[in-house]
């Protein structure tokens, strides 16, 4: 993907000043403003009901409310990782990187006609940092345990002071406002409990208030949410020809119980777009298009998805010193990586629709992925060499490899039951391992049990190896704050509380150095070094990353231009989407 990678440093150094209206760039759409048609309904789907319409009640991720929360102080476009001022007319970052001042755009209005001011953003900050509210955003307001302090300077100015320079802090400024004149009043009068009780799914959604391009007007549980165009959004959002956005009049989200049901609705012409999750679904849609039953666009294999899958070994096995020393040896883990037949996994498990994964950074964040990261591809002969270096030269009658002391290489590989793809990956690995004398007992266990094992701490944890995945993260610094530092809870292979390997320590040091580096290119170079250290370590043996596919009816236009569609930014910007007859 060709990137317009504006270094973040530049973004940070200068103050932006735009007109009161935000102009959506032509470059974000495959169509020109002149081609756009106004009116019409876009029909989308969601795999579950919204849990709430309250932006603060979010004990878990909520896709529907997230989709509605497109309006934030600063934002990232689909073509660049740099932050743009959006609901902020401009923002400045102090030279030491510790103070961010945001000037809220004047003239914006809520869907009930009230003015959107800095007080709305400050209320969001206040409620999110209240422990009693229990918002999903709570953790993001802390850097290494120290709070980010917000200040309401005047009606249209906010200031946030950071405890230390941190490049992961800027995404926190992408604040989506909550209406202070409604939810703020409730909070001030009734406290956290009253705030949490507001705007549940049992309330009249047409009375909720939004800043978004579409506002919910009706919600029927299990069936549908209907959003209608927010007329006030068009007052400060326009295309390059000066037309108010969004183009569409209505946006509906049909609730479906399964992806198969969504596919059926798409094939029946009841939905305008569908993201085929598997090669099978891809084939069905392709067949329908070829047969002339579906007039649609199909874009297969657009990019790897934003998640990872890996095998990790347990370094804390005091009750089994042999396994503990084996699992702590990088040569053993590199040998195991040489036994992961990624091409076979891609062909057999994903029908060819996946890409090998070598680094801890999701491949979709291609700006950050080190192209020269050390690789340990499928090579059973090299695996045997490494195992022999470790002294495993004996082969028993049962085909299991052992050392001179009679210690055989045998371990259990657990993965979560019900995830058939992971179960298949584990079996392909076990077969390859068995062929060179490594006995792998594959176990599918309950997901929560697996997580319990993985998150257990101390010097004797109850598993050998686990195949699991992670998702989450961002394009600003795609290294998990809970994953790389040695004393964090998702540092899965070593939960002793301290680094045990020099490379592990190196990765941790580099991680913090990169976080404190505001210059994007410099941070990326450090990111490359982190990836190299972790690849040599092979503490997490990455397998493959499935590819994302997209499809939409031919009547839907305004998608991202070719090459800009990927799993990180999606297929389109909702305000620039339109439909033709």
């Amino acid at each position: 993907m060709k990137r317009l990678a504006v270094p973040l440093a530049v973004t940070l150094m200068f103050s932006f000043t735009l007109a009161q209206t935000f102009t959506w760039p032509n470059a974000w759409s495959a169509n020109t403003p002149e081609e756009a048609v106004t009116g019409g309904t876009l029909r989308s789907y969601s795999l579950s009901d919204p849990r709430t319409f309250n932006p603060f009640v979010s004990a878990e991720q909520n896709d529907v409310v997230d989709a509605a929360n497109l309006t934030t102080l600063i934002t990232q476009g689909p073509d660049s990782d740099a932050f743009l001022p959006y609901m902020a007319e401009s923002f400045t970052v102090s030279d030491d990187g510790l103070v961010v001042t945001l000037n809220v755009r004047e003239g914006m209005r809520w869907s009930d006609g009230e003015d959107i001011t800095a007080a709305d953003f400050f209320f969001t900050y206040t409620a999110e940092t209240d422990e009693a509210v229990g918002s999903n955003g709570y953790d993001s307001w802390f850097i290494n345990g120290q709070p980010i302090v917000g200040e309401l300077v005047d009606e249209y100015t906010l200031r946030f002071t950071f405890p230390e320079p941190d490049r992961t802090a800027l995404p926190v400024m992408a604040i989506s406002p909550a209406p202070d004149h409604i939810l703020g009043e409730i909070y001030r009068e009734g406290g956290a409990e009253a705030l949490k009780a507001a705007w549940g799914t049992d309330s009249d959604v047409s009375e909720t208030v939004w800043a978004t391009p579409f506002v919910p007007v009706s919600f029927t549980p299990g069936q549908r949410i209907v959003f209608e165009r927010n007329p006030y959004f068009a007052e400060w959002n326009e295309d390059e020809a000066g037309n108010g956005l969004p183009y569409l009049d209505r946006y509906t989200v049909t609730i479906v119980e399964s992806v198969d049901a969504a596919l059926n609705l798409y094939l029946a012409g009841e939905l305008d777009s569908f993201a085929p999750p598997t090669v099978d679904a891809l084939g069905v849609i392709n067949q329908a298009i070829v047969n002339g039953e579906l007039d649609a666009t199909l874009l297969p294999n657009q990019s790897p998805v934003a998640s990872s899958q890996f095998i990790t070994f347990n370094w804390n096995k005091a009750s089994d010193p042999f396994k503990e020393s084996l699992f702590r040896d990088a040569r053993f883990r590199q040998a195991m990586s040489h036994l992961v037949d990624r091409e076979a996994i891609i062909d057999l498990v994903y029908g060819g629709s996946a890409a090998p994964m070598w680094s801890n950074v999701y491949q979709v964040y291609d700006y950050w992925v080190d192209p020269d990261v050390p690789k340990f591809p499928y090579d059973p002969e090299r695996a045997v060499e490494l195992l022999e270096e470790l002294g495993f030269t004996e082969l028993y009658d049962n085909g299991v490899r052992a050392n001179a002391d009679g210690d055989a290489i045998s371990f259990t590989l657990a993965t979560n039951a019900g995830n058939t793809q992971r179960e298949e990956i584990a079996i392909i690995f076990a077969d390859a391992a068995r062929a060179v004398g490594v006995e792998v007992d594959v176990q599918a266990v309950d997901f929560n049990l697996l997580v319990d094992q993985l998150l257990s701490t101390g010097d004797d944890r109850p598993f050998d190896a686990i195949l699991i995945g992670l998702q989450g993260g961002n394009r600003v610094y795609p290294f998990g704050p809970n994953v790389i530092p040695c004393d964090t809870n998702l540092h899965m292979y070593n939960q002793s509380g301290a680094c045990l390997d020099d490379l592990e320590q190196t990765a941790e040091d580099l991680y913090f150095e990169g976080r404190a580096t505001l210059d994007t290119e410099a941070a990326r170079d450090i990111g490359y070094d982190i990836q190299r250290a972790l690849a040599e370590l092979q503490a997490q043996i990455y397998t493959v990353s499935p590819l994302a596919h997209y499809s939409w009816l031919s009547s839907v236009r305004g998608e991202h231009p070719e090459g800009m569609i990927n799993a990180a930014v999606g297929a389109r910007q909702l305000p620039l989407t339109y439909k033709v007859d």
Partner: protein
Amino acid sequence: MFAYVVRRFLNLVPTFIGATILAFLVAQLVPGDFLQQRALEPNVRPETIERLRQQFGLDLPWTVQYIRWFGSLLQGDLGLSFSSNQPVTNLIAAPIRNSMVLVIMSIVLLYVMAVPLGVYTAVRQYSLADQSISALAYFGLAIPNFFFAQILILGLFTLRTFTRETFGYNELLLPVAQMTSSNALDWPWYRQAWDVFVHALMPTFVIATSGIAGFTRVLRAQMIEYLSSDFIRTARAKGLGERSVTYKHALRPAVIPFVAGIGGLLPVLIGGAGLVEVVVSWPGITPTLLEAISRQDIYVVLGLVVVTTFLLMIGNLLSDLLLSVVDPRIRYD
């Protein structure tokens, strides 16, 4: 009779409490809790998970959690859903209502189809029609509903291919998923009701199929038994017409077990239509229950268990009472 009903009600109390304890215990036996899945999010701190666990009361012993929950239940409160912070009562009302649409329609279809078929196959025993209906009945009994639904969906798409190629008509004969059309909100209420009815037709047919199959086979056997009894021979000897013999004398005793079973329909009514709801994305009880189980939103699960258990017990009581009404040999005093 009144004393019997009061006694039965009193007996229901410990049964109900026992059932709720068992359900609560089973929910607690599952490893982890509602917050476990968040523990794997790279940006969520462990102390946040712990704090939320305390806010939800998930750090308390299960006995304390149960007593708190049961105390609320006595006041008619089924608790709060963890994931939405909404009262469970609100969350389960719509799925129960939606499931009842399917279940009532399928029960009507069941009786309308099964009674005539059962009588016909008994009267025309071993005829070609009897053999064919019996074969279809076995097919209906054998095929799982969720699979049958998928076959019908495939059939509808295949039919669309045929109509498109033959007549240039590229629309589906019946909807294949959901309960309403995407633009239903713009329609008047009667068209919306028709829309729901049309969406319900295919799943209704699927759900009713296995019931029709079983019902027809049992009714056929009952009818054959009664048609060869002495009192039928006597009725025929008195010169009664065959229609009167069949429908007045043989059918009445033959349907007694089904009439008595009507009480059992109460829990079925809210028990939902099973996995068919998932296949056709019908927003009923089964998808709600499955989602709540997978999220470990235990109070939603328990809410559905409580309502189902309560109706099951009331249904059983009603069945027993109905038995005494339709069968004079049974008396409870």
